[in-house]
């Protein structure tokens, strides 16, 4: 009987390089408070955000992705042509088809890499890391480029008090490849579609076409319900990721959660029971909530600030619209 060849990859992977691109403008709270009848003080108290980064009108999701990806590939010591798969995680690329990843791969000179988008909102980066790790270990791709990129300012309503004022524009990219030692722990991931309405767009594209008077879709959330879910359920997922990696909270050097809201981050730290020595990433203060980009952005920030270093163990967890979530322990590049 004829049998088929199968590929096998290396046993271990790690993040080889990291790059980020923040929107060109730091937008202070004062610029956004009038339409929501709020104040700088209220926004800081409820979210921790002082500024959020937003891109110029003519900067696209692909532009941000390209800048981040070029730095990640260079830090990995590779040429774009060596990338064999490109995973772009985004919810704000404004085309149903084609995906952004093939366009990005072409711009980078990474063709003919396999290239596809994933829609996992604020969990998208950790979803991408899980997939990139699996692709390399299976032998499907030698080097995988994972990008979390958003231009959320295209989908905000200035008068919305639920989520719009939190959101920013940015991209974060990493390259995953083989490693002599384990650099990416098992991904603990999942979904809770029963909570699909908790973070959503205001109307479907078909309603925009068919229902007169339907506004261009923007984002909304049920803030307190999302807060409860993220603050009290996600710590259990984080602890599962720690256990799956065969380490303990004491072994973690840095905690890099999705930068959704500083109140969620603080409550997660408490609920997970992270020891005092663990550095907690709080890039949200300056960058805002950049969805799929927030974890790589916060990773770059702790490294740049010198509060974490290459080789440190980081617990990262993404969670958001879906509802979806993913967590893993990684070795910082």
């Amino acid at each position, binding site marked *: 009987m004829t049998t088929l060849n199968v590929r096998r990859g290396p046993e271990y992977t790690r993040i080889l390089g990291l790059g980020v691109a923040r929107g060109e403008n730091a937008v202070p709270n004062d610029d956004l408070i009038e339409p929501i009848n709020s104040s700088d003080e209220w926004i800081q*108290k*409820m979210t921790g955000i002082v500024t959020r980064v937003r891109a110029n009108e003519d900067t696209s999701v692909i532009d941000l992705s390209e800048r981040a990806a070029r730095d990640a590939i260079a830090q990995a010591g590779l040429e774009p042509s060596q990338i064999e798969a490109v995973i772009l995680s985004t919810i704000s690329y404004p085309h149903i088809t084609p995906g952004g990843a093939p366009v990005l791969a072409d711009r980078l000179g990474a063709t003919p890499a396999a290239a596809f988008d994933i829609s996992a909102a604020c969990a998208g980066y950790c979803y991408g890391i899980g997939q990139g790790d699996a692709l390399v270990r299976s032998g499907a791709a030698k080097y995988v480029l994972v990008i979390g990129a958003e231009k959320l300012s295209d989908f905000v309503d200035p008068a919305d008090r639920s989520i719009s004022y939190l959101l920013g524009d940015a991209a974060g990219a990493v390259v995953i490849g083989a490693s002599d030692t384990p650099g990416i722990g098992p991904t603990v991931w999942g979904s809770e579609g029963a909570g699909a309405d908790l973070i959503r767009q205001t109307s479907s594209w078909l309603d925009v076409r068919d229902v007169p008077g339907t506004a261009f879709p923007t984002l909304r959330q*049920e*803030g*307190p*319900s999302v*807060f*409860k879910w993220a*603050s*009290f359920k996600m710590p259990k997922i984080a602890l599962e990721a720690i256990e799956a990696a065969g380490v303990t909270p004491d072994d973690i050097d840095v905690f890099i959660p999705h930068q959704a*809201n500083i*109140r969620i981050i603080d*409550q997660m730290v408490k609920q997970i029971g992270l020891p005092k020595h663990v550095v907690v990433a709080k890039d949200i203060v300056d960058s805002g909530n950049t969805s799929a980009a927030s974890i790589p952005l916060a990773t770059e920030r702790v490294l740049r600030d010198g509060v974490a270093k290459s080789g440190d163990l980081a617990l990262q967890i993404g969670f958001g619209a879906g509802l979806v979530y993913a967590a893993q322990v990684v070795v910082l590049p």
Partner: protein
Amino acid sequence: MALAQNEVLEGLAEIVVEETGIDAADVQLDKSFTDDLDIDSLSMMTIVTLAEEKFDVRIPDEEVKNLVTVGDAVTYIVNAQA
């Protein structure tokens, strides 16, 4: 075993004090969480979640807006235990 109203009030006050740092004596049945105790929507969700764990009850998110006073919350918890 279901707790009496005063026991629930005492337990709830411990949670409110832990979350907000306000004086336990201020947590009275007639106090409004928002207007009197200055508890915002996110702190309220934390209090509700910790109360669910402490009293082994379920308080759906859509019920939270009806818990205007401390007394509303105590009554809800007492009834949910029954």
